[in-house]
């Protein structure tokens, strides 16, 4: 009897030791995880906070209303140009994305859908500088647009297509089949179902896709360097007239020697990051139910 009691005690000791080790490794992973989470939070605050501090210290109201050339003046032309370029990009990518997504979700067969989706995926994996090179070769040179709103905007649009197409495709597919059947049962044809039912039902998804793609496009530089170049004033024409944009100011002014050029870069970064974060959070807020 004493033997079995000591055996039980031994077993208990063994289990206790094992239990302690297991609890300890759990604690260790938890601590490392919390540390990394804290580190990332700190890093985000460090990056955004630093941009905010530098930007707030150098921004002035005058910058919003005067045009600039990356070392003197303001940011008005760059701000306007950024939205002109993004708007031009949307003009291409919105119809292509929304209706392409509709086709992928509703009309395509398994095989054609797969092939077309593959090409959308390929398009997302083209590095942005190569898209810029493509825009330069095809739009600027071959189609003779020059450095222009059209060339820069279309290059941005090419980049925005996959985001809008895939996200809107998902939001069409999420609409229950019964909704379509109900519409067909009421005598609607497939065009009415697509345009008056699916587009309306998927509007939240499409809206988040648009906001997301705008926020990505507004922060792009590499595609625009050799398609939009830079302009010291406002851009009014479509072709043969370069466009100013914020990311160029950040990149170029930082290499300038004068403090005022640096102030321009910091202010541009502040304007850009705050508008992008606003768009991203807005798209999160709109799509919160999903």
């Amino acid at each position, binding site marked *: 009897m004493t033997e079995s009691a000591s055996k039980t005690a031994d077993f208990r000791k063994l289990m206790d030791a094992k239990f302690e080790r297991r609890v300890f490794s759990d604690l260790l992973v938890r601590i490392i995880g919390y540390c990394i*989470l804290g580190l990332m939070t700190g890093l985000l605050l460090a990056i955004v906070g630093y941009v905010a501090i530098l930007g707030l210290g150098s921004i002035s109201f005058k910058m919003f209303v005067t045009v600039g050339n990356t070392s003197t003046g303001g940011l008005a032309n760059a701000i306007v140009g950024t939205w002109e370029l993004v708007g031009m990009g949307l003009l291409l990518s919105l119809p292509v994305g929304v209706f392409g997504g509709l086709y*992928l979700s509703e009309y395509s067969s398994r095989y054609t859908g797969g092939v077309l989706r593959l090409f959308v995926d390929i398009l*997302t994996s083209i590095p942005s500088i190569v898209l810029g*090179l493509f825009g330069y070769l095809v739009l600027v040179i071959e189609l003779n647009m020059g450095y222009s709103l059209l060339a820069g905007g279309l290059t941005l649009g090419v980049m925005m297509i996959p985001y809008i197409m895939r996200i809107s495709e998902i939001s069409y597919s999420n609409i229950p089949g019964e909704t379509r059947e109900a519409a067909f049962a009421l005598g609607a044809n497939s065009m009415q179902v697509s345009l008056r039912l699916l587009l309306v039902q998927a509007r939240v998804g499409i809206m988040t896709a648009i906001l997301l793609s705008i926020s990505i496009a507004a922060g792009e*530089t590499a595609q625009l360097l050799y398609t939009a170049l830079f302009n010291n004033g406002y851009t009014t024409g479509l072709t043969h007239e370069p466009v100013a944009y914020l990311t160029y100011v950040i990149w170029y002014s930082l290499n300038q020697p004068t403090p005022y050029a640096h102030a321009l870069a910091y202010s541009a970064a502040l304007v850009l990051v705050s508008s992008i974060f606003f768009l991203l959070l807005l798209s999160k807020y709109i799509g919160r139910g999903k």
Partner: protein
Amino acid sequence: MAVVPLAIMVILFSFLIYNAIPSMRYSGFDFFTSYIWNPGMFYRDPIMYHGVPAPYKSSFGMLSFFVGTMITTAFALVIAFPVSIFLSLTLNLYTPRALRRPFSAMVELFAGIPSVVYGLWGVIVLEPILLHRIEPWMKTNLSFIPGFSGEVFSGAGIIAAGLILGIMIIPIVTAVISESMASQPKEFKEGVYALGGTKWEVGRHILLRNTRRQIAGGTLLGTGRALGETMAVLMVSGAVVNVLPTSIFSLTNTMSAQIAAALDSAFIDATGMNISALVELGVILVVISLIANLAGRAIAGKAALRGYEND
């Protein structure tokens, strides 16, 4: 409308390859083995070589950029991989439910920061810290590791570019891994808890084991993103040419950054050979990043579909 991406891709590839042909004829195989990138002398008469005109004394070799791309991407993965794994585990196991959404939204905000802003932060904040504190410390204390002994030039270089790239790809890698961890069936986790398992044991035996494919796929997607990243790397890598890195402190350059940096002066070349060489560089970059991206999508995507079936 869904055919538009296909059409764009066809036009893109045909234009790129058509424009790369002169460079392929001029440089031949040397393009892959040489690390000298010399635009040539634009004011001398161009020479004819292999039937194509090129500036006098020009030579194009992608090796230094290729090596730089690979080293900085590898560095970025070394940073991003463990961080993303631990982030996903923490978000799925230890974070209180109420904080889960804010924290994953925070990780996504990293993806929203434009690459020039990362570059700006790298130049102003990271480089001075690296130059004055971290790199001297590494040099004195870690020089026994091969590649850690060398001249500290400036804060820019492999470490800065790798760090920034690592931070930039964390959101995408984390999103893929965390998403697939969250979609693991509740019953699996409950089974481990019912056996008296700790949270880490759920993480190790269920979350990590069942998402190995998505972890690999997500990492490949991050690799693809790091390969093509341009502006941030251009700003913090030092953007040197004709230099192969000798240590981890070396300045470097990548294929994408070289295209952005050199296209400006390539326009002056009347023979067009400089542009053609950059296009060839772009074609190779596209091929590499396509392989990484499509492989990642294929690996993670199939497993994601399987996850749907198990749901």
